[in-house]
């Protein structure tokens, strides 16, 4: 098997394989340590960390939908200080790339969080969540226009010691123009998609299914949307794209890579099948053999159009 080369390089960082976990769906890796061998993964992405600790929204915070789920966790996290003291030590023990996802409510907040992370070892890259749909003002302050995305990216690029992945929202008219703005501002890579804005209603009680009313739609249901975003952005930028959205197995991984992704993240799938990521690493090797391709890198953007 070892003759198949699954390695990929993103923002100068080498990944064992293109398979990572998505922010908010893998905790800080601790829980999954029991289920899978984390060293088999290309990388793990941590839950969004913010400047201050956030308890998150009141429950119910999640509900099931056809082929997917809604969540309005509300960026619950321990805050950057406790993240550094409590979570980083464990993350440093891991033999995989650790990508720390950062969220904020103003450029200053992002900057402060990154400043603090700059002092930490054991971080491979940062992923900047500019698109969480669950928090205030549609959460679209930064992901809603090319200008705001450009501004944020260039400010963060100036101060970050780590390469930056900008994570994009699909809830926009033209994701490609925002992607281009991030690239122009110096982003090392892009990841997409964050969740789609969605909502559920209880027809018996007339209440929303989520206390927060709206939430983020994820899971297999959104895979077609995510693939279309990746493909559209791939034709617009040169930096690597990390595909996210409804990926459940190695075939899905292949589809995203063919559409233009250099790597992928598994989100909701971790809830359904905790071993989905490691299973996909194995599956991907067999797949490469079947399609007779040596290096996964060759597959990126191979879509016949």
């Amino acid at each position: 098997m070892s003759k198949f080369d699954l390695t990929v390089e993103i923002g100068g960082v080498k990944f064992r394989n293109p398979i990572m976990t998505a922010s908010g769906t893998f905790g800080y890796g601790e829980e999954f340590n029991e289920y899978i061998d984390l060293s088999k993964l290309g990388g793990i992405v941590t839950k969004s960390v913010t400047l201050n600790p956030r308890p998150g929204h009141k429950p119910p915070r999640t509900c099931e939908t056809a082929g997917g789920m809604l969540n309005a966790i509300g960026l619950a996290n321990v805050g950057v200080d406790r993240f550094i003291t409590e979570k980083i030590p464990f993350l440093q023990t891991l033999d995989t790339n650790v990508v720390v996802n950062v969220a904020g409510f103003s450029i200053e907040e992002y900057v402060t969080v990154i400043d603090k992370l700059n002092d930490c070892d054991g971080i491979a890259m940062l992923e900047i969540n500019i698109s969480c749909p669950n928090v205030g003002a549609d959460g679209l302050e930064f992901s809603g226009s090319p200008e705001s995305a450009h501004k944020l990216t260039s400010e963060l690029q100036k101060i970050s010691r780590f390469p930056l992945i900008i994570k994009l929202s699909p809830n926009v008219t033209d994701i490609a123009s925002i992607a281009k703005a991030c690239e122009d501002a110096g982003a090392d890579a892009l990841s997409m998609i964050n969740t789609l804005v969605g909502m559920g209603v209880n027809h018996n009680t007339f209440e929303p299914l989520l206390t927060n009313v709206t939430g983020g739609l994820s899971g297999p249901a959104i895979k077609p949307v995510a693939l279309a975003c990746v493909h559209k952005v791939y034709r617009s930028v040169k930096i690597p794209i990390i595909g996210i959205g409804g990926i459940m197995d190695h075939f899905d991984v292949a589809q995203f890579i063919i559409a233009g992704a250099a790597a992928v993240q598994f989100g909701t799938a971790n809830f359904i099948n905790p071993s989905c990521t490691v299973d996909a690493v194995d599956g991907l090797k067999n797949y490469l053999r079947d399609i007779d391709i040596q290096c996964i890198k060759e597959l990126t953007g191979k879509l016949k159009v």
Partner: protein
Amino acid sequence: MIQHPSVPIIKNEKLSKDLFKIVFRSKDLASGLRPGNFVHIRVSPEMDPLFRRAMSIYSCENDTFSVLFRAIGKGTGLLSKMREGDTVDILGPLGNSFDPPDKDETVILVAGGTGVPPLHFLAQWLLSNYGFDGQQILFLCGISSADDLPLSEAVEHLDIRMRTSSDDGSVGFKGYVSELLKTEALPYDIKKLRLYTCGPVPMLREVTKICAEQGIRCQVSLEGHMPCGIGTCLGCVVQSTRGEDEFDRICMEGPVFDSNEVLI
């Protein structure tokens, strides 16, 4: 707490219109399950329904364990149609378990509806693993009507003390099980009493209120929507009494909580 991708069903018994009991065979699982634990069952290989379904343990012996559930929706509906020989993907044992009572305490178990299974397992365990005498255990079983008789029958085989109530009076005491609790708990020395409860939220509120008023030590087993069941999604939280902004994950810190730890 690991993934068992292919656990065979050895029996699926229809107990009533909508109550079912499934017996699974898995030595690994059966040997690790403790009262209060739950398992997370993948009910379909397809993407709808997407989430696993959480089920408490009704009983566990040697290399088998069983769950007892009501088919209320699409997930439990699919589960109810499974047959001997089918295999399912199960995560478990998950969650914490009930704190054991002291040997000299009297234990009252207050179950409502499908809250029966975990308390049945607890009673079994107290008898077989903690040397409890059947007379020390009082099982109060609340059902809505005679349609749910299989729930109380599922406990009757145990050699313990038991009282049943039904909302419509068609079986046993007419009224809520919490009413039954008020009178049944009276004779006991509250210092030597332990209460464990599981059932619908309104019932839990009533039972924990009674316990708080009377100073009875009480543990509740909670349910909550569980996308992952393993502590990572932060979806299944319940508000803690530690403060407005404090939440506990039912799947990790629970499903069993001291009744004064959580705001139900």
